[in-house]
Each structure stands twice: as C-alpha cells, then as structure tokens.
C-alpha cells in the first residue's frame, strides 16, 4: 500500500529531549525512516567568551557547559592551561580534583539513570537518583559554596581546601551509595519491561562507534576497552586502582549497565582517595589566587597575578562522565586566550544517534537517546 511519510517535529520543546533539541523525523507510521537533528537553540557563544575573558575569568563559563557534571569541565580547561604554561600542581590539590570529579561522575550517572527511566515512563528512579545527588551536592556546597556551577578548580590547584567534616560526610555518602545502588539494580536492571525497551535497541558496533566519534560510557557499551583515564593517565589516575567498565553488546542496555558499573568504580576510587589523601598545600600561588582567608594584614601575599602563558597551542582531553571532553587552547602570550575550542562529548556522541535509530520506532528513539546521555548546554555551548 502506498502511504505518505509523516514529518514529525520532536522538540525543541518536548518532554524527553533533555532540553531544547529538535528531531526532524520522517515517519512511516510509527517507524522512523529519517532522523535529522537540529541543535543550536542553547548556543551562548562560550568559545567566543573564551577569547574575551582572561584565563581565570573563563573558568566560570566552563561550568555552564555540562551543568550536570561541571567539575570535569573546570578541570579540562585548567588542565589545558596547565599543560600550556607548564604549571606544577601540589599533590593534595590533585587528589582533591580527582575526588570532586569522581563524585561528579556519580552525580552524572545518577541523573542519567533517572532521566532514562523517566523517558521510558518509570518515574520513580529519577527521584531516587536526585535523593542521592542532593547528598553529593551538599558535599559540594560545603566544599566550594556552589551546588552546580562550582568554579572550584584553578590553574595551579583548587580554590579552597576541604572543609572540616568533609571526609566523614563523604564516607557516609559512599556507604549510603553502596546500599542505594543495590536498590537501583533491583528496581531497574532486571525489570522485564525495561529489558524489553532497551535490549537490542540502538545497536552500534565498535568500529562504527569509533568512526562516528562516540566516546565515554556510550562507546564502552559497544565493547571498546578505552578510557582516557587509563590510556593517557592524567592527574593521579595512574596511582589509582580502577578498571574501565565495558560491555560488548552495543545496545541501550549495555550503555546503561556501563554507567551502573562506573558508579561502582567511582565509589572505589573515592575510597582510595579518602585513604591516600596527602597533607599539603592546595594551590600553587605563583599562578593563581585563592580566597583570602587570613587576616587583612596578610593581603600582600594574595594579590592576584596576571597570568600569561607563553605562545603556543594545546589540545588536552579528559574522560568526562559523558565522554571525551577536550579543550583546545591557543595562546598568543597575552592575558586572554587567542582561541578556545571545546570538544564536547555530547556534541560528538549525538552524531551517531541517527545511525542508531533509523528503522526503529519513536519510543526506541527515546530509549537510545536517553542512553547516549547528552546535556544541551554541552551540545550547543
């Protein structure tokens, strides 16, 4: 029978596009024949901001990229600047950085699990995820005063040392999470309806995943044993014991499971950090400034320094919760970067989505899209 294809606009304002994303779907009944993705509704010109602000002033803007997990954004930019200028970082600062980043990975995966289940219609998981996320956010609040937009990691260290009572609270959180993850797994992992919705949906092979530029947990779900923390260890990851979680199937369920495993690994890393955390300074004050905590008489040692790296360019990348987050920073020897380019994981992971969903149905699009785990702030920059 000759039928007409239906053009369906999913988004920009739609319950399950995680923001302002638009799918232009060409539908044959319920089956997707063509999927075009329109992005850019949240474009704020962050890269242009990078050219207009000093190195230190740009850090708050990186918070607004992937606002679910902002700490790795901070770190990725700071790492690029540190590589460019050759800044040494105190060991304690590195430990604190990894601590906050792994905590953020847990937060990100909690939100991802919750929103995936919400997209599939199970609305309880997101509240459980947010309950634990709240505990983690309170840790952040006591650490740096902000809950989502941290501006915590600075070139040369971190803004402030851990507050009193942080480590006991963190231990409590880790203990709590151990029990909660079991709850999540019982609630979600074996659920037959969840399995029906995610198994063999949005399958992408390892070669295709690489070629389409997928990174992070989404790609490890396709069976690529690759984690930048392992391959190019940065910070103190080479001293820590963890493994890159991986699943072979390449479907939505595998991508989901990778994240559950990663939460466990992150907890494992957090435990090691709590054990190993060294004493010492948290910032290299030659290059950056930290809040003035002393008496006003001590002001002279805290006077801000104008920070000018030498001319050059660098591309540095880290394993953010969503994938490979890279910052290309070109310096021309002035106080402001000449060019900042952000390689955001969400943007590149989204390229592979049409490949995954053509021939499937709208509910499958939602399921596959949920497991790619994007944030529109990160896509549109």
């Amino acid at each position, binding site marked *: 029978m000759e039928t007409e294809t239906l053009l369906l606009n999913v988004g920009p304002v739609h319950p399950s596009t995680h923001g302002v994303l638009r799918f232009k779907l060409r539908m044959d009944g319920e089956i997707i024949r063509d999927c075009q993705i329109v992005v850019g509704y949240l474009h704020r010109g962050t890269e242009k901001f990078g050219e207009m*602000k000093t190195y*230190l*002033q*740009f*850090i*708050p*803007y990186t*918070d607004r990229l992937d606002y679910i997990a902002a700490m790795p954004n901070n770190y990725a930019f700071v790492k690029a600047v540190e590589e460019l200028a050759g800044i040494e970082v105190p060991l304690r600062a590195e430990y604190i950085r990894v601590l906050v980043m792994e905590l953020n990975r847990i937060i990100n995966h909690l939100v991802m699990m919750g929103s995936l289940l919400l997209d599939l219609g199970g609305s*309880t998981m997101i509240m459980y995820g947010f*309950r634990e996320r*709240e505990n983690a956010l*309170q840790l952040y*609040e*006591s*650490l*740096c*005063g*902000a809950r989502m*937009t941290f*501006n915590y990691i600075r070139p040369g260290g971190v*803004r*402030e040392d851990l*507050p009193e009572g942080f480590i006991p609270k963190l231990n409590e959180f880790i203990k*709590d999470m151990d*029990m909660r993850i079991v*709850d999540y797994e*019982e*609630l*979600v*992992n*074996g*659920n*037959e*309806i*969840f*399995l*029906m919705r995610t*198994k063999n949906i949005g399958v992408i092979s390892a070669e295709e995943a690489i070629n389409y530029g997928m990174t992070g947990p989404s790609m490890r779900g396709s069976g690529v044993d690759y984690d930048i923390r392992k391959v190019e260890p940065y910070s103190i990851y080479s001293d820590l014991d963890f493994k890159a979680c991986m699943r072979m199937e390449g479907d939505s369920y595998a991508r989901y499971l990778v994240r559950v495993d990663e939460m466990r690994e992150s907890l494992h890393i957090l435990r090691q950090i709590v054990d190993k955390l060294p004493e010492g300074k948290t910032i290299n004050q030659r290059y950056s*400034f*930290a*809040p*003035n905590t*002393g*008496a*006003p008489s001590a*002001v002279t040692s*805290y*006077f*801000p320094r104008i920070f000018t790296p030498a001319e050059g360019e660098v591309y540095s990348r880290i394993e953010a919760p969503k994938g490979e987050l890279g910052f290309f920073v070109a310096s021309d020897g002035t106080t402001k970067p000449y060019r900042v380019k952000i390689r955001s994981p969400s943007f590149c992971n989204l390229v592979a989505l049409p490949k995954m969903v053509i021939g499937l149905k709208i509910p499958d699009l939602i399921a596959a899209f949920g497991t790619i785990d994007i944030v529109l702030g990160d896509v549109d920059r």
Partner: protein
Amino acid sequence: MAWISKNWAMIGIIKGLIVTMKHILQIGDRKTVTVQYPYERMKVAPRFRGKHAVDEDACIGCGICETNCPNSTITIVKYGTRWFPEFNLGMCLFCGLCVDACPMNALKMTGDYELADYSRESLVYGPERILFKKEVSK
C-alpha cells in the same frame, strides 16, 4: 521478544515492586527526605555563595573586583563620601572571583539565596543594600 517466553515469572518486576514497597513502608534508610520549603529550610553551608556583602570599614573602593568580574556585574559607585561596589545580580555568575580577588578581604558572599524579584532594576544591589559593618572582636 522471544525471551519473554522465558521470563514468565516476571521476577524483575516483582523485585522492583518490593523495592517500592520498602519505600512505602519506609523500611531501612528509606525515609522521606524532602523538606516543606517555604515553611522549613535547609541550612546552607558556611561557604555558600549567595548575595554579596561588603565590609563597610574594609572596602577601599579600589575596583579590583570590578576588573576581575567575568560578566561585568560590578560597577564602583559613589555612596556618601566613599566609593563602593554595586552588584547587578541579574548578571552575576556567583563565581566568587570578586571575593577571591579582594585585596582588603572586604567582600564576602552570604547565604542569602532568595533573590528573585519582579523587575531587572531591583536586581541591582547598590551599596545601601550590601554594606555591613563587621563586629569588632574583643
């Protein structure tokens, strides 16, 4: 779909039902965690970055906060006989760079987070609303 014939018992769903039932009955550490916001509030951390406050005695009106602000939130205005910063909180990122940069340690950020208002103009916090006098410790 073929596997559904193997999953007749629906063990997974029953497990999930048990988890939700545990929450209904609040068994273990599964109690209600939300707060009734306007009636009860959560305590904010001491480091919380909310509305700014300027120490009237310490501030010298040097403008270092103004140059360090990423988003041009701060302007230095004349208030009485002296110069003080004025904050346009509608543009503020609450990044805390001004606090870090202040050479006199005069700036701080309070735990005041309920800053919603009806007009953009009322979000400009002039010195009259942000100045405070530090209590002299004896």
